[in-house]
């Protein structure tokens, strides 16, 4: 193999390495506690993917009230976030879409206090705008002409979806199993899939790119979202202040505006 070949191969290899992205590292710019009462520095919040829109909005409120403090987010499936917190740390605050994954973190003795449920969410069927396939309930998801995407059973919304389908006694053969709830909404808004099961808040977040079909209470599953400050938090003051804002009437209003349900 001659020099040019080798350099081409090396270039290829280095590009290969670039292709292997890592998950976002928390910001390193946190400063230690400020002498005065004013909050400063940044806290990293690990939050369920379904909280993306309301938490970004609450963070705007937080920044407006605390100009020298900041919040950065790592959104993803709660299950993956729990694994990251246990294996790598890096989180100041954890907001999970279910109790199971919060318990995993709590069982490792990584929480400062017992977690608090701050909001709830219910399931909805997400379809294309105008509902072209005429889906009226979970039983329609069993139709062979309907391409359904479910979240994988490993992530909270996937587990809830299967609970709801079991309650409705419907067997669905999905075309794909998404790795988080946003991965269910995506193919439906792109038109590649006809329907999926997501949180009501995600249908709302999709705006006019998707529509929702409600699931009756007797088939639905109520998801409880707990949050707690991590013991090894590098900036517990900012983390706690953000948590207080989420729990405040102001924060709750943002969440309910996004389709969540007050606890």
């Amino acid at each position, binding site marked *: 193999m001659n020099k040019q070949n080798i350099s081409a191969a090396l270039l290829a290899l280095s590009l290969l390495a670039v292709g292997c992205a890592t998950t976002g590292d928390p910001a390193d710019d946190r400063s230690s506690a400020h002498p005065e009462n004013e909050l400063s520095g940044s806290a990293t919040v690990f939050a369920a993917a379904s909280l993306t829109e309301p938490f970004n909005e609450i963070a705007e409120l937080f920044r407006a009230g605390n100009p020298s403090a900041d919040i950065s987010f790592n959104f993803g499936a709660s299950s993956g976030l729990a694994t990251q917190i246990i294996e790598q740390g890096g989180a100041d605050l954890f907001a999970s879409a279910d109790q199971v994954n919060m318990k995993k973190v709590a069982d490792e003795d990584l929480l400062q206090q017992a977690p608090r449920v701050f909001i709830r969410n219910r399931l909805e069927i997400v379809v294309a705008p105008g509902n072209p396939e005429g889906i009226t309930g979970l039983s329609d998801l069993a139709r062979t002409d309907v391409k359904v995407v479910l979240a994988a059973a490993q992530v909270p919304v996937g587990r809830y979806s299967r609970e709801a389908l079991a309650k409705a006694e419907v067997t669905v053969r999905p075309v*794909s*199993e998404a790795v988080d709830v946003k991965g269910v909404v995506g193919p439906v808004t792109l038109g590649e899939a006809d329907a999926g099961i997501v949180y009501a808040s995600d249908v709302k977040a999709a705006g006019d790119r998707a529509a929702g079909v409600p699931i009756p209470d007797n088939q639905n599953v109520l998801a409880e979202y707990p949050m707690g400050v991590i013991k090894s938090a590098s900036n517990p003051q900012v983390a706690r202040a953000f948590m207080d804002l989420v729990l405040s009437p102001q924060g709750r209003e943002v969440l309910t505006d996004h389709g969540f349900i007050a606890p």
Partner: protein
Amino acid sequence: MALSPPSLHSPQPPPEEAARTGGGSSAALEKASTAMVKLAVGVAVAFFLLPLLGLLLRTPWGELSTELASPPVRSALWLSLVCSLAATGISVVFGVPLAWALARWTFPGRSLVRALTTLPMIVPPVVGGVALLLAFGRRGFAGRWLDQAFGVTLPFTMAGAILAETFVAMPFLVITVEAGLRSMNRRFEDAAATLGARPWVTFRRVTLPLIAPSLWAGAALAWARALGEFGATITFAGNLPGRTQTIPLAVYLALETRLEAAITLSVVLLAVSLTILVLLRERFMPNL
């Protein structure tokens, strides 16, 4: 070469002479730069070795065989091998002619075509997957035509997974083969032509053997890239066990719940790919 001690290089002035002409400082300089190179080599090797060690130290070796025997792992492994080998095959069939055109033909927009070829290497794979959806998806312009004309839909199918892997893997083959074609000695081709060989015979009997190392290297790179492909596959082909869930996708989902399972799957993939590469290399590239 840089690692061999300076004293082994032949025309070294004797010490006294070197000192007189100021060569002493240049010898010290050479020594220092050799040490620097050695340091860089050590850092580079450690950089690759440490993550591998991290993986191997956490591997539950006792569970490896159970994991290998479990149907979901076997189907993911099988899918990974089939899809990546198919992607490599398609890359060779279409990539070698493309490399030939880039290396030998002069046509307007050649550098543009080359840039286009390397696009999948630069674009994040997830974006590549979205781009594939917008073209070959159910609502994409090419996808709609495929559906209407042939009743073929690619998203969420194994063919879709192969397409996504080919998209990200083929550039590696094209640039490696093109480099091989550019650097080979063309006098052998000219000689064959002078002796009356038809172009195809020349290509098969003269060019191909000469660029074989590049071809194998390119194919191996493309295969490795296809085997590890995640972003474009999950975006375009989705994730369904038994149909489109290759090992990288299974690893990602296993990470959601059990780190050990994810590690085991990775080690299985690593072992399989290493075995294949070593076998291939002994068979086809003994000099590489």
